[in-house]
């Protein structure tokens, strides 16, 4: 008698499995990614996008959701945007960032503005070569999101909306194909669209649209050492080009050190294991610098005035102190002018790009 129940039982099993397979299958969802057109200011270099991760509208929108979604953290309390807040020019306004367990790191969150245009490494110590590599780190980092990518990926697979978005962005055929690498690619795509508008007063001046104030112009003159009318503030040697950074790593004399092994944070040296790189950190872009206090890799300076005072002092000597760091002898007026120029680098118009906003609000 019992055997007569076997066929219906097997049928049910087949149906259940086939339902699961159908649910896993994403092939019915159209895959037709559209290129994302990036509008860079005319004076910016062309962005190099990895051939295996071209910018698409679908990829950028997926990355945007992941960037703002606390699903990436172990307790669903923080996302990438917790330390890279749009209203703070994609920093967090803190000296050093604090993760989900309330533990502070030893570095300040860098702004993401134009991060897709940087080269020679990403982060204060340049330990990542690509945005795709970098995007993988914070999830597992115990002092950041303190989660596990395995958990995150399972949550993403279980989420219908995310599954559909991964399909539309990357053409995967089943939920099983969702990986942390694809998530990182999407986040990297979103980060590449965080680019300046090129509408700061400085940009407008370069285009000939406006003339700066006397104070801004004197600061510009000092910054780029254009004339003998003002002292050379030596800024542009490291903050050069349209992004106002040379993408180099230097010791700018912040920290006293008895020798090259004595820096409390070895910075670049911890990555390269080269003694003379100890105490060196990435030269940040100065675009929108007035919006990204506090300053330096450890957020030690609260204001730009303190930053200027540091450079004017000549900093602390070490065998690898950059030769451009020395007592500049700037007057109070010189410093005010330099400050005025730094404020002329402010441009918040790019932050109103709707593609950069939080999609959950």
């Amino acid at each position, binding site marked *: 008698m019992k055997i007569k129940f076997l066929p219906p039982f097997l049928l049910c099993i087949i149906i259940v499995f086939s339902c699961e397979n159908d649910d896993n299958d994403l092939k019915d969802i159209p895959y037709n990614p559209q290129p994302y057109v990036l509008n860079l200011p*005319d*004076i*910016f*270099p*062309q*962005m*190099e996008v990895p051939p295996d991760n071209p910018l698409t509208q679908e990829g950028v929108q997926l990355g945007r959701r992941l960037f703002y979604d606390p699903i990436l953290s172990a307790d669903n309390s923080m996302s990438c945007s917790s330390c890279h807040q749009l209203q703070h020019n994609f920093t967090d306004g803190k000296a050093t960032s604090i993760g989900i367990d309330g533990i502070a790191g030893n570095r300040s969150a860098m702004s993401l503005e134009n991060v897709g*245009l940087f*080269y*020679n490494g990403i982060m204060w110590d340049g330990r990542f070569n690509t945005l795709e590599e970098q995007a993988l780190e914070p999830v597992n980092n115990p002092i950041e999101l303190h989660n596990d990518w395995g958990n995150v990926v399972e949550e993403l697979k279980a989420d219908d909306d995310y599954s559909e978005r991964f399909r539309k962005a990357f053409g995967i055929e089943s939920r099983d194909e969702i990986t942390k690498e694809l998530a990182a690619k999407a986040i990297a795509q979103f980060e590449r669209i965080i680019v300046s508008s090129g509408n700061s007063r400085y940009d407008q001046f*370069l285009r000939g649209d406006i003339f700066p104030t006397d104070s801004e112009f004197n600061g510009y003159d000092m910054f*780029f*050492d*254009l*004339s*003998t009318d003002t002292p050379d503030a030596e800024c542009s*040697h490291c903050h*050069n*080009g*349209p*992004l106002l*950074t*040379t*993408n*180099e790593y230097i010791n700018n004399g912040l920290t006293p050190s008895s020798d090259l092994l004595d820096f409390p944070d070895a910075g670049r040296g911890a990555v*390269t294991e*080269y003694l*003379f*790189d100890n105490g060196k950190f990435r030269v940040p872009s100065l675009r929108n610098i007035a919006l990204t206090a506090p300053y330096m890799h450890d957020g030690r300076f609260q204001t730009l005035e303190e930053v200027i005072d540091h450079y004017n002092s000549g900093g602390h*000597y070490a*065998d*690898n*102190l*950059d*030769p*451009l760091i*020395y007592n500049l002898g700037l007057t109070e007026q010189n410093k005010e002018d330099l400050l005025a120029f730094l404020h002329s680098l402010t441009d918040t118009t790019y932050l109103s790009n709707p593609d950069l906003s939080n999609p959950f609000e």
Partner: protein
Amino acid sequence: MHNILKLTLFALSGISILFISSCTTDEPNGTVNPVDIVFKAMYDDRPLVINERYDLNGKEITITRFQFYISDLALKDGNMDVSINEIDFMDFTQKNISEAAALEGITVSRASVPIGEYDGLKLSIGVPSDLNEYVPADYSSSHPLGLGSEHWAAWNSYIFSKVDGRFDTNSEPTVLEGSIQYHLGTDDMFRKKEFSELDISIKEGAVKTIIIEIDAKKIFENGNNGYLDLATEGETHTNPNEPGQIELATRLADNWLNAIMIQ
């Protein structure tokens, strides 16, 4: 009408490609060989290691940044040039972090140089004027001319070379107080170097390697008067508004020519 125009342009493009290809097919298989030109930065007879201390006229100095553009690198066969590379950026700051790395040098390669005998080699230090009209925005960021850090917008010029360092200003060398900043740019600082009466034989088989050394110490020479006085001549940014900087930059540009040697 629009389609006809497109077709015409397409056809013309195809013809152009065929024409260009036919002009460069003078390197059939078996008649070319790879050539590596290795650039090595030295200080006197030692490999230049960034941040190491060296002697300059009895005073200790360090070189903390050493980088420059080379352009128009070519082998010469009589009056004919065989181009190796149009433009490249030599960044010894990143490369020369140890003696071993310094000895490796930076290699510029060309996969297919016609087999034959060459009697010369030429190169230039800096960016030729026709390329110096461009700006980094015209290139991708990994192209040598796409490096925003190596262009002075204010002078409308790439920075042809940077030599930075520190020097001792007294007899107590624990701290090197003085700073060296030699940043050359603008068309007037472009320099051409040509080596003649060479015997370079490119044969089928192993990669031909040619070594070029750049002796950083020679950049500090002051004609027949020994070496530059770094206390008074330790800095130039080729600022056209400061004649003293231009004069020093001109001497340094000439020194670069003397600093380049073929091994």
